[in-house]
């Protein structure tokens, strides 16, 4: 039977032995062993707790308190130790799983757009945002719509600028030389209601060199209604150029000539390469020609079913290749029709 002081000393001894054992446990098995030894049914702590009843009544309370505190302490130390051991094991495992993160990833082939498609979509979206609706027309077009309805009669000098492909076995039909016939189609569909139309598509000219391709793309816009003026054209072009070339774009209109518009204007933007200082691309002028435009000619309005005394309108057309070449610094138009993946993979 233990004496009071001795009993408390024994608790101390028990504690220090148990602590040493727990600290010495290196893995889960050793720790479990220690748990059985010290906290198990047959362990010294349980033994001592059972022995409280044999202690003098005056000591019982303190002894019970000390033993219970010790049990709590051992349990919490074991939990801590448990965490330490599993942390160390995980760390060791992860270190074994280390690999060379500088090795390249599993390659994925990305798809991507064509520069012409990028420009086309941007042009259409910019005009859509201004309330223009999309329309289309055939590439094999009648001479009447491609020329006569657009105020380009046979022998008109402007026909010289349209080196035309004729369609075999189909007299009176050509590969359209511009997207402007879609104007007539749209007007005839909507007259006398107002029209806001855009179209984009392929056009054809008998031309083949660094800056001319026999097949190329145009985008065309048209607005007809009562009270449409040239200031509306300028406003539309300004918004349109901002959408394509950025917020800070400057535009300049120059008088020009197109058979289907009067007055006509060529539209320049401030050179995007030199900021207007003058460079090789703008030939020192600080401006780059972007598109042709004007007020729809009365003859064309009549062809479209409108009364020029009541209705006015504006139209403009853009070469998609030209914009793509300017925007992406491509200097040979033929590159745009080669589908060379070395170019396409840059987009």
């Amino acid at each position, binding site marked *: 039977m233990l004496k009071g002081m001795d009993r408390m000393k024994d608790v101390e001894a028990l504690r220090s032995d148990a602590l040493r054992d727990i600290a010495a446990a290196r893995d889960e098995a050793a720790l479990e062993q220690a748990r059985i030894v010290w906290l198990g049914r047959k362990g010294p702590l349980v033994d001592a707790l059972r022995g409280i009843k044999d202690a003098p009544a005056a000591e019982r309370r303190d002894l019970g308190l000390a033993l219970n505190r010790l049990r709590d302490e051992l349990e919490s130390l074991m939990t801590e130790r448990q965490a330490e051991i599993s942390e160390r094991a995980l760390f060791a495992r992860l270190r074994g799983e280390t690999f060379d993160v500088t*090795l390249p990833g*599993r*390659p*994925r*082939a990305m*798809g991507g757009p*064509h520069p012409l498609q990028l420009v086309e979509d941007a042009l259409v979206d910019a005009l859509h945002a*201004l*309330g223009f609706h999309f*329309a*289309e027309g055939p*590439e*094999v077009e009648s001479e009447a719509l491609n020329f006569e309805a657009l105020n380009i009669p046979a022998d008109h*000098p402007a026909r010289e*600028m349209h080196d035309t*492909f*004729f*369609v*075999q076995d*189909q007299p009176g039909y050509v590969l359209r030389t511009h997207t402007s016939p879609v104007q007539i189609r749209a007007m005839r569909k909507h007259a006398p*209601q*107002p*029209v*806001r*139309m855009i179209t984009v598509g*392929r056009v*054809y000219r*008998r031309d083949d060199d660094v800056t001319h391709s*026999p097949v190329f793309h145009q985008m065309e816009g048209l*607005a007809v*209604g009562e*009270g*449409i*003026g*040239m*200031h*509306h054209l*300028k*406003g*539309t072009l300004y*918004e349109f150029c901002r959408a394509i070339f950025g917020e800070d774009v400057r535009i*300049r209109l*120059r*008088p*020009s*000539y197109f058979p289907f518009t*009067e*007055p006509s204007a060529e539209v320049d933007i401030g050179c995007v390469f030199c900021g207007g200082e003058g460079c090789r691309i703008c*030939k020192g002028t600080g401006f780059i020609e972007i598109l042709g435009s004007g*007020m729809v*000619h*009365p003859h064309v309005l009549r062809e479209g079913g409108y009364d020029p005394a009541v209705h006015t309108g*504006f139209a403009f057309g853009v070469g998609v290749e030209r914009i793509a070449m300017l925007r992406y610094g491509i200097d040979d138009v033929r590159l745009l*029709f080669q*589908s*060379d*993946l*070395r170019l*396409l*993979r840059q987009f």
Partner: protein
Amino acid sequence: MRISHAWLTEILGPLPAPQDVARILTEQGLEVEALEWHGEGLSGALVAQVQELSPVTERLTRVLLHTAQADAICVTGAPNLEAGLKVPYAPPGTRLPDGRTLETAQFHGVTSHGMLLSADEIGIGSDHDGILVLPQDAPLGEDVSAYLGLPEAVYEIGLTPSFAQHCQSAIGVARELGARLGRSAPNVAAQPLGQPPRSSPSLQVEDAEICPLYAGVWMGRREDVKTPLWMRRRLWSCGMRPVSPIVDLTNYVMLELGQPLHPFAEDKIQGPIRVRSAEAGEELETLDGVRRVLSAEDIVIADDRGPVALAGVMGSARAEVDAATERVFLEAALFSPRRVSRTMRRIGLRSEAAQRFAHGLAADLPLRAIARLRELAPAVGWEVLPGGIQAGEVAPAPPPITVAAAYVRTLLGMPLTVEEQASALRSLGFAVESAADRFAVSPPRDRIDVREACDVAEEVLRGVGIGKLDVELPPPAPAADEPAVYYLRRHAMQVFMALGYRVAVSYSLVDPSLLATLGQPAEAAVANALSVDLSALRTTLRAGLLQALARNLARGVGEIALVEAGRVFHRSRADVVEEENLAFALCGPRAPISRFGQQPADFFDLKGDLEAALAALRIPDVHVRPGSDPALHPGRQAEVLSGERRLGTLGELHPRVAQQLGISERALVGELSLEAMLAAQVALVARPLPRYPALVRDVALVVDEDLPYEVVRQEVREVLGDLLAADALFDVFAGAPVPSGKKSLALRLTLQSPERTLTEADAEEALSRLLQRLADRFGARLR
């Protein structure tokens, strides 16, 4: 056309700097495409006088020169020197426009201190065979650049067809520039010719349509002088070459006023002068020495012996003015722009004259030009003799154009008063009578391009300056239908890009033999193709796509995945019908080589992409059946359908076709009709998520080896109906232990009911129903 700053200055008075003039002209619609500086870079050359000439060899001459300071010796090969002439002398150290710096040089033992300069070396002209002879009053010792006013600014102007009607002349350009500077360009007034001289030949114009006005005068040579330097310099600056005094004079008047003139050597023509249509097959040797066979479209000037000029285009060698010519018959006429333009295009001869006639000339211009010729002739030693012959009268000016000021205001969106509009027009030389809110406009006679109110509005705009336009957005208009196929195409391209495809763009004109190789012969072709390889309209997008594929392979580019959308052209009876297609192709591995290995794409890569794309595009009930496209591998191709609707085809390229196209690797290609896809597409409506759990069952079926999977699949779908939430084939196996002639198909079937939780018993019942049917139909049994 070209015009020098100096010429414009002479007409209008002192001008702003050339860069500013170029900007003003451009903003006025006369686009200055280039500002050239002739004679730029010449420094150190002096005016010198030839003192003495002595031969060095047969071709070289030693020249003793006098400058203001000292004498110098030069050796030259030029034939046109004589003592007393003033010449440009470049002493050693002189820099020439071409960048050379002169030094002393030895010729056959004679030291040449620098050289004498030709117009070409100075950079102002094209004459290289002689030394430029300066006027006698050129001050000795003066710097040549200063004396000649170098460098000389020359504007190269790109003319639109309407400006070509009134600005192919110094006066025309000056009128436009003057409008912006508040100056006016004086014009020469037309004068009647007077009576025909005695014994003049008769003049017959066959048809006023082809030649509304023909005027002729006679000119005589009075002195044998050279064309003065100032006139030659104008010709040079405009890009023309001086020829002889009389030719130079007519060219000069053309450049100044825009009226082409033609001199005939009088002694080389005889009998009445006729203006008529050419007879088809008639021949004429033009001044450039080319024998030309004429067409009935051409207009000729003829005498007793036949044509002496191709009217409006070029004269003939037979009536050419030469050094011995003492008298000329000079023509100033108007010819049908349409006819001249046709002749010019037909024979490809864009002479200065033809380019002016082709755009049309003012009705009174021939008589103005003759009046000007009369003034200038003495400068070149010639004289215009009194009287002349004329056919046709100068057409009266067209009646004034009446314009409502409100129309101009609406069209331009500018709140301009009648008076503001009138003064804008007057600055361009228009006569305007205004009253209340409308006005009557008479354009200058040269402005044949101004005919109706909208033309006048453009002139108002140019008169006030196009830079004054306001900026406003148009009012909205009602919405309109848009072609759905356009949006499907954009969506489809996005889907294929997401699947790793790059977008291709090919010519829609192709070689017909390429289409034949692909088994889809051309149905429409171009009548006037540039070349065979751009002569047929494509019937399939695969033509361009496979060419692009071959081109990439030839350039060593691999891992090819391309998609293209566009139109193909077929014929339906007489009409060409356009259809929107989409084609896609794979060749080689999907990704670059890496340590993860690489597999060249095969049929099932392409088909997987197709299935994914069609699902993303909401094309329902997609399935395939074996196809018979001659360009594809007979055993590795399929037709694609949505329900009963045929969408297109896909497969492995036939090895023989591949070889013909220069494609050395296995290529896979598919083509779909966007219109068919559009018709098949279903609306996007979200289905409710399943509320009850699914049961998953794997079954391995043994069937005949040649039974297509699609047939089994259709049966599975039919038997299980709504119960089948998903099905997948996860293994195909033939060989032991599967009996020969058989294969095993491993299917994972996901069963689910929208109404209740399925029980094991439900699944058992459904599967046994399925197996029974498959056994009955195909003799299938469980493995």
